[in-house]
């Protein structure tokens, strides 16, 4: 009796182990030169990344390549790993990824690269040795500085307590910008009156961002300004300021998309905020990945290339390509862009 059950177990176990142990090679050649490029953002239910995806789609159409976007619903590094593995199994030609956690996804990305798949970082870079090129939307320092500048402009007298409502605590880009903000606040005497009291994390989740924003208002009653360098965070904070009636008393700025923030800019909840052309970011990322796949560039520092309608770019010594300077949105220009 026991043997029968044992043999069932053995059969099933053998089958699995055999496949795992011997298993035929799965596409040993790596990526192909046909353009099958996948975008893997921090999370899929994020309007910011949807806009970037539309840019990627535009580039795909221009180059007659394939485009798809996959990603986790929660912005954690751990959640991105299975997607990278799946894309590797599916033998895509390139992965364009925005990293929730630069180190967590590095082993999986390196495995993809070992198979010949090109890896391009965008928005938030994976570890340097786990990607071929990183497309940065703007100079990290510049992004941090412009936000401090904006909050100073908004707060009467440029003095008082300010707080930052960020996304996840490990996101490369967020930490780079926040560090730039801290450096700027410390070194530039113009901001001597401003005091950064807290960095809160909304995890790019509307609910968490709302609760964190409320908590900031409760724990720091003298708060004069909130900087939120993430679309989900800034719209949640704007909503909270309006609901609690603090709009106008506590200033708000950061990074957001014009469509989400239009109403708040027009009614004064958020006087100005910045961003870049997110669609162009996606376009450039796809184009760069395509050029890598086709072998037209290698990803080495100093290489120059032309990215379709966007023009010429050069890869800097760190393997980074800059899209351009950040763009400041105010009431008088917010109707110009639609995304």
């Amino acid at each position: 009796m026991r043997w029968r059950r044992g043999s069932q177990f053995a059969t099933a176990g053998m089958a699995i182990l055999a496949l795992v142990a011997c298993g035929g090679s799965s596409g040993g050649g790596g990526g192909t030169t046909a353009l099958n490029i996948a975008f893997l953002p921090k999370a899929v239910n994020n309007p910011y990344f949807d806009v970037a995806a539309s840019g990627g789609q535009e580039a795909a159409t221009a180059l007659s390549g394939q485009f798809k976007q996959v990603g986790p619903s929660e912005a954690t590094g751990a959640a991105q790993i299975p997607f990278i593995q799946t894309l590797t199994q599916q033998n895509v030609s390139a992965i364009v990824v925005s990293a929730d956690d630069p180190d967590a996804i590095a082993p999986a990305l390196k495995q993809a690269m070992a198979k010949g798949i090109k890896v391009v970082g965008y928005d938030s870079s994976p570890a340097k040795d786990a990607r071929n090129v990183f497309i940065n939307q703007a100079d990290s320092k510049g992004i941090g500085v412009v936000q401090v500048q904006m909050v100073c402009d908004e707060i009467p007298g440029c003095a008082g307590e300010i707080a930052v409502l960020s996304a996840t605590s490990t996101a490369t880009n967020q930490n780079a910008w926040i560090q730039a903000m801290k450096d700027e606040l410390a070194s530039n005497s113009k901001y001597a009156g401003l005091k950064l009291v807290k960095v809160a994390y909304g995890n790019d989740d509307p609910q968490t961002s709302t609760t964190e924003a409320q908590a900031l208002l409760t724990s720091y009653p003298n708060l004069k300004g909130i900087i939120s360098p993430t679309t989900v965070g800034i719209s949640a904070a704007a909503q909270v300021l309006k609901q609690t009636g603090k709009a106008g008393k506590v200033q708000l700025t950061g990074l957001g998309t014009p469509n989400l923030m239009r109403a708040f800019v027009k009614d004064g909840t958020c006087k100005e905020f910045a961003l870049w052309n997110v669609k162009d970011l996606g376009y450039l990322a796809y184009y760069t990945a395509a050029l890598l796949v086709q072998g037209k560039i290698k990803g080495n520092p100093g290489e120059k290339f032309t990215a379709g309608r966007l023009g010429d770019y050069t890869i800097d010594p760190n393997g980074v390509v800059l899209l351009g300077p950040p763009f400041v949105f105010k009431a008088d220009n917010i109707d110009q862009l639609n995304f």
Partner: protein
Amino acid sequence: MSTLALALSRRWESLLVILLVAFIVLGSSLSPFFLSGSNFSDLTSNLMEKAIMALPLALIIIAGEIDLSVESMLGLASALLGFTYALGWPLWLDIPLVLVAGATGGLLNGLLVTRAGLPSLVVTLGTLALYRGLASVVLGPRSVSGWPQWFTDFGFGDVPGTLIPWPLLVFAVLALAFLFVLNRTWIGRQIYAIGKNKEAARYSGIDVAKMKTFLFILSGVLSALAGVILTARFSSARADNGQGFVLDVVTSVLLGGVNIFGGEGTIVGVVLAIFVIGVLRNGLTLADVSPDTQSVAVGALLILSVAGPTLVRRISAARPRRQLTKPVSNS
């Protein structure tokens, strides 16, 4: 186990094997990339932490209790590992320390359930929150990386020359050990007895409290081990590692034929169930179905797996009993 329970269990395991094969067929029809060694390797390595936690949980549920805190113990272990490593302590010291912490957490669960007599559902609900909270206190929002190459290779890589992930080896050894202990030793017999009828077990001399406490400690240690492996696989120690795991782990155990009320269940069934869910999820993932949508299938599977046998039992109980003895023929 009683003969009836044994018979039902074997039937259940056969069903699981059929399901497993069916899902493998489904997976290969949905995507050409499914049937490959490296895919199975990936699929398996993603499962191993949950699989390791499912083994002691199966024993706990058979014994009539439950442990919801496993995922938080995993997170706490990861956080402690990261914390001690960041302090500069070497891994050969950190890992055993973390396992001891797991044992302590399990001990707390065990004592609250056996000495204080509190229901395990609520106790482990509390420790689910408590241990996750402690993980946050220890490590905060940061993550610790920069692990030695051998550690990362162990978590993420395969045994050289094969496609077998190292953690699979660990799990295989543990599974065989659990199988042996549950089926062939007095420990296993006691566990089933406790699950079937706690009072009867106590009257026949079994130290119920000690056994249950031991099981909770075992769960704590293995959850901590899973935490170490997860940290290696992600090469990142974080307080929120393992968040959301407990549902999959409990589902694996229940789908594996373990009765939620205790007294019935097998390790073979649980192992099969782990792979059934893993293969199903993997097949759907390769077909670009998002993990959250996959949950509809997993949830339905769980409900049907319990509703099915329950309905079968009710129908067979309702049918009039045949004569149990043949009439004696007079010569």
